């Protein structure tokens, strides 16, 4: 009998009112490890009501006390670090090292939230006018929620929730129905903290639960990470319903490799950026632009290094690349590879049809390289979200920047070079939210804002860092005169 997941609402694990459940697969073993409820409006409404009730007490708790809960949370996460990492592997398919890295980065967001007693402080001016003092204070807003993706089932939810609640808000998490188990264990840990009931809530589900969160009048704001078409819908729906919203979308991240770059060292990092998490991250390297003489050298080295990657089950420590998240994802990625070939790209390395001993049914796609890719090809323009790296040619630095800035996405872009001048120009001119210099995954740490530009982001305030404090608080100006 497969375990049916419960929602966590008002401090209790409760069954959803739905009769519909989605199987949660281990994408390597194909085993159904649980079933997640397709929660209903009624479930979400119950969570919102619990969060609203909790908000009145929670916002009055001193911020130092709220931060103390995060100290305890961090300790328990460290204690359960390996357990959480293994669950991430089992439901997502990435490698255990990648899962550990994900959990580490999630904990960094908890570390950030612990600093909120300092970070929430604001300023004031005495005698802004004769005998009048003016100060700014930050106040929590109410109930916030997150709709999070499958690719980082622990880290992305933890980007938002700790900061939101230490700011004094209450929270509802709706994780991906494909990977709900990381949040289940996280909420088991949160339960151990003995926070007031209703401060943190977990509602599983898909579109219905997401719509309920976005349309519920009791929800003040929503954070989202996922694909661009969905991010746009989330942004429009939340805006229409008068909510704050930060919606992070898809990406097509370009990497320019200059002729003066250290090719072997650069490619080692680019391989990690392209094939890490089987290419299923919004900051994955998707297109390498070889500039001038670098094109042939980087292509040859990429093929050499990528073909040696060991593909396998993520819980095997020697595995260097795991599965994609599902058979459907595998099929979609393989179709994109075929599309690239049909459009005239050269298939230098074909990851289709890879078989891993002992995991013959697993959703594996091996490292794939398409070269001679042209800007108008679908594989150059659309997000593949898999272990497929396209290689394009640019005559010079200017040509590389032109190619990159033509993309409708603007999540991240990197340059590999030993020239400070080119690096500076790249930072200055490329339209992307995250810029890497000699690093393929330009991922901001927890104390910096994370978000893209163009179709990679819908909203104003990015996730993480100071932006998150702005997002989760309302500023109020107090003008005082004592007569």
């Amino acid at each position, binding site marked *: 009998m497969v375990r049916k997941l419960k929602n966590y609402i008002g401090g209790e694990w409760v069954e959803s009112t739905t009769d519909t459940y989605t199987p949660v697969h281990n994408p390597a073993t194909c085993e159904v490890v649980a079933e997640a409820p397709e929660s209903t409006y009624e479930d979400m409404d119950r969570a919102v009501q619990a969060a609203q009730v909790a908000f009145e007490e929670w916002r009055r708790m001193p911020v130092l006390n709220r931060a103390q809960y995060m100290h305890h949370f961090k300790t328990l996460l460290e204690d359960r670090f390996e357990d959480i990492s293994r669950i991430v592997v089992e439901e997502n398919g990435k490698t255990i090292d990648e899962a*550990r890295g994900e959990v580490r980065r999630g904990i960094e967001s908890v570390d950030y939230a612990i600093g909120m007693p300092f970070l929430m402080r604001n300023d004031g001016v005495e005698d802004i006018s004769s005998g009048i003092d003016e100060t700014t204070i930050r106040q929590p807003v109410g109930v916030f929620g997150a709709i999070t993706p499958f690719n980082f089932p622990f880290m992305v939810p933890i980007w938002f929730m700790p900061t939101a609640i230490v700011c004094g808000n209450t929270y509802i998490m709706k994780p991906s129905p494909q990977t709900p188990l990381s949040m289940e264990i996280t909420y088991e840990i949160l339960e151990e903290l003995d926070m007031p009931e209703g401060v943190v809530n977990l509602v599983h589900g898909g579109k219905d639960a997401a719509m309920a969160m976005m349309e519920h009048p009791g929800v003040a704001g929503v954070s989202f990470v996922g694909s661009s078409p969905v991010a746009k819908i989330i942004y429009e729906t939340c805006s229409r319903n008068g909510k704050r919203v930060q919606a992070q979308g898809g990406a097509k991240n370009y990497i320019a490799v200059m002729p003066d770059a250290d090719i072997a060292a650069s490619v080692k990092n680019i391989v990690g950026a392209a094939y*890490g998490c089987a290419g299923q991250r919004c900051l994955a390297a998707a297109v390498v632009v070889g500039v001038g003489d670098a094109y042939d050298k980087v292509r040859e080295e990429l093929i050499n290094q990528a073909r040696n990657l060991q593909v396998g089950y993520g819980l095997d*420590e*020697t595995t*260097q690349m795991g599965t994609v998240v599902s058979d459907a994802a595998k099929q979609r990625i393989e179709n994109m590879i075929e599309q690239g070939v049909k459009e005239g790209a050269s298939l230098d390395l074909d990851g289709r049809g890879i078989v891993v001993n002992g995991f013959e049914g697993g959703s594996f796609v091996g490292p794939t390289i398409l070269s001679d890719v042209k800007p108008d090809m679908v594989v150059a323009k659309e997000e593949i979200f898999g272990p497929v790296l396209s290689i394009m040619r640019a005559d010079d630095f200017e040509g590389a920047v032109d190619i990159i800035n033509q993309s409708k996405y603007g999540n991240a872009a990197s340059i590999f070079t030993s020239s400070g001048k080119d690096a500076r120009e790249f930072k200055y001119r490329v339209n992307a939210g995250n810029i890497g210099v000699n690093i393929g995954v330009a991922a901001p740490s927890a104390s910096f804002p994370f978000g893209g530009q163009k179709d990679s982001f819908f909203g104003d305030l990015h996730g993480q860092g100071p932006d998150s404090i702005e997002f989760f608080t309302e500023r109020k100006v107090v003008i005082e005169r004592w007569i």
Partner: protein
Amino acid sequence: MPSLNTFGAIMTFAINLENDLVDYYRAVGDTERAAEADKRRSNLERVRRENVVEITLEAIDGLDEADYAFNFDDTSEAGQSAVETIAARFYEDVAPKINVRQAQRVLSRYAGQHSGLANA
């Protein structure tokens, strides 16, 4: 034999090695060395947890478990020295392969500790 081709594979091998050394020195009756190995094991678990940098995980090559064959059945002084010599060589080999300075520092330090024990 499996390859030591990832950050996790190396760190887990090191953790298991120190765990084996705890048992080995307990069997020998050297509680002090067993305690030292246990302390290293615990610290390596922390290092694996805290120094795995998701954005710079890179494949590692040129290392294989087969190159570090320990004979834990030989509890003689010469056997202990041989075990420590291999342990020192393991740490010397793996430290430069790790691209996180903090982890590298700990692995290098342990190479020195095992080298000292080998020559004690």
